[in-house]
């Protein structure tokens, strides 16, 4: 049996580890467009910032592929998949036969249709290790950097560059930062932190047109820049499987074990959809933990052990200019706001369940909330007042605590 994996990030690593739990024999071939050892993709901002380096950014130790019996074809791009012949064709002409295939090709930056954007000389994205190294090379202490997009990628990039370049301007069509992750209060806190670090925001505006090193915004303002970083969203890389005939919605449609509509072809990670437990709808959750868990589930299943992953929810944690945020689930239903010493806390409940939360400042023990969303813990079984105050196991029943702390979990 030969397992072929297209991709080399969280979902691919999860697949390798999941598969090898049950199958130590079969051959694994990994095909990756990027020439690098598996690395922590979200760490590229920390690399740019100098908080990690090329050795420590590796997500698993050197020897990871050898230890797991993986033939890693790094720097090789897959060109097409033939589900009838069960082959993958590479750009370089090679044909690779598979018995099972994991397609984990990730996502790519969305390039907005803005006049003149292709004429910008020093233009960057911020999705890959090479993107980070390229950006690092092209900015100096005198650079004025323009960042298009105040989402997670744009802000982590701004944080990494803050204090190391002359100016950072961030433009976003939304009227606040991190609009898809935070509510207005949370956004304002992050914005404040960023502005104290010298970042300038131009919100509620987008780029109308670009010159080689300037932009004119829709609000009429013109800004010069030396380097441009575009982070206005990502698009799932679905093309190869779409052309092969797989069912594709916004992302590749999969079941809870990662099966696509094509026989013996699985998909996981940013290119695939998840069933979001907090909203009850399928959607693309382009997030590291989700990618690993999907890949692991597919890997175990391909090794013959049906292992559905049914607990996908949005999860975001990170520090922004010294302010920590942690969010999960959906912001739907009744809202409960607690503003205390530790920062800002907002919980969302609906149908007797915790559906989502936003924490900014003190994020300690946030996972207790996350588990309640994942496990659909009835609020009737917990002391909600205690939980709203802070996440604590005291809010659970004695019996439930005995299960948590007195047995193997």
């Amino acid at each position, binding site marked *: 049996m030969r397992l072929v994996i297209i991709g080399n990030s969280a979902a691919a690593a999860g697949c390798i580890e999941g598969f090898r739990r049950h199958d130590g024999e079969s051959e694994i071939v990994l095909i990756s467009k990027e020439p690098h050892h598996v690395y922590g993709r979200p760490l590229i901002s920390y690399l740019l910032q100098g908080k*990690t380096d090329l050795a420590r950014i590796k997500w698993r130790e050197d020897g990871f592929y050898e230890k797991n019996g993986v033939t890693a074809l790094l720097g090789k791009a897959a060109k097409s998949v033939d589900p009838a012949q069960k082959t993958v064709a590479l750009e370089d002409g090679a044909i690779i036969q598979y018995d099972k295939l994991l397609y984990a090709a990730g996502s790519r930056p969305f390039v907005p249709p803005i006049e003149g954007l292709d004429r910008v000389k020093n233009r960057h994205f911020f999705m890959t290790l090479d993107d980070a190294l390229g950006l690092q090379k092209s900015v100096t202490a005198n650079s004025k950097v323009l960042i298009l997009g105040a989402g997670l990628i744009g802000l982590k990039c701004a944080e990494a560059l803050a204090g190391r370049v002359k100016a950072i301007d961030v433009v976003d069509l939304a009227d606040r930062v991190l609009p898809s992750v935070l509510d207005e209060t949370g956004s304002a806190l992050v914005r404040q932190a960023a502005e104290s670090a010298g970042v300038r925001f131009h919100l509620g505006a987008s780029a109308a047109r670009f010159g080689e090193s300037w932009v004119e915004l829709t609000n009429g303002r013109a800004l010069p820049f030396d380097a441009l970083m575009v982070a206005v969203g990502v698009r799932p890389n679905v093309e190869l499987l779409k052309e092969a005939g797989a069912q594709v919605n916004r992302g590749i449609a999969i079941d809870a074990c990662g099966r696509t509509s094509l026989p013996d072809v699985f998909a996981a990670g940013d290119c695939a959809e998840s069933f979001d437990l907090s909203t009850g709808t399928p959607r693309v959750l382009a997030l*590291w*933990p989700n990618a690993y*868990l999907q890949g692991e589930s597919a890997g175990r299943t391909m090794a013959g052990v049906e292992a559905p992953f049914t607990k996908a929810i949005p*999860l975001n944690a990170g*520090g922004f200019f010294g302010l920590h945020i942690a969010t999960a689930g959906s912001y739907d239903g009744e809202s409960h706001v607690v503003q205390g010493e530790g920062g800002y806390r907002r919980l969302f409940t609906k149908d007797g369940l915790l559906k989502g939360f936003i924490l900014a400042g003190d994020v300690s023990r946030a996972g207790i909330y996350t588990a309640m969303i*994942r496990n659909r813990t009835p609020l009737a079984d917990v002391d909600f007042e*205690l939980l709203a105050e802070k996440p604590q196991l005291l809010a659970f029943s004695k019996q439930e605590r005995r299960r*948590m702390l007195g047995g193997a979990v």
Partner: protein
Amino acid sequence: MKRVYVNESWCLGCHLCEYYCAFANSGKRDLVKALKGVAIHPRIRVEEGDGVSFAVSCRHCEEPYCVKACISGALTKQNGAVFIDQCRCVGCYTCILSCPYGAIVPSESGAVQKCELCLKNARAEPACVAGCPNNAIVYEER
């Protein structure tokens, strides 16, 4: 494998486990020198409420969400136990957002810390277990 288990009906709420944990992981040989006048950052924490108290530390889950969610690869599972490599941790706290027990906490350096069953310090068995005066914390196979 052997894990730390807590029986809340025997917990006195004395917090000694927290002090023994902080001492065991301080790298110092003298308890007084390690802890006197120091704000401790133990990897086990006692929760207290109305007539109830109990200690919480890493459960070393069979399927650890923290390890699978870790964006840096700093959290790993080795022979059943979950370890943190603080040199690789970037302090994003995705693990804190993922742990169902609230058992991973930031350290003074910003990297996270957690119970490693005293397998990486000089102790023969978990210091919280050895120091608990009422056997409310035990280290055994279950």
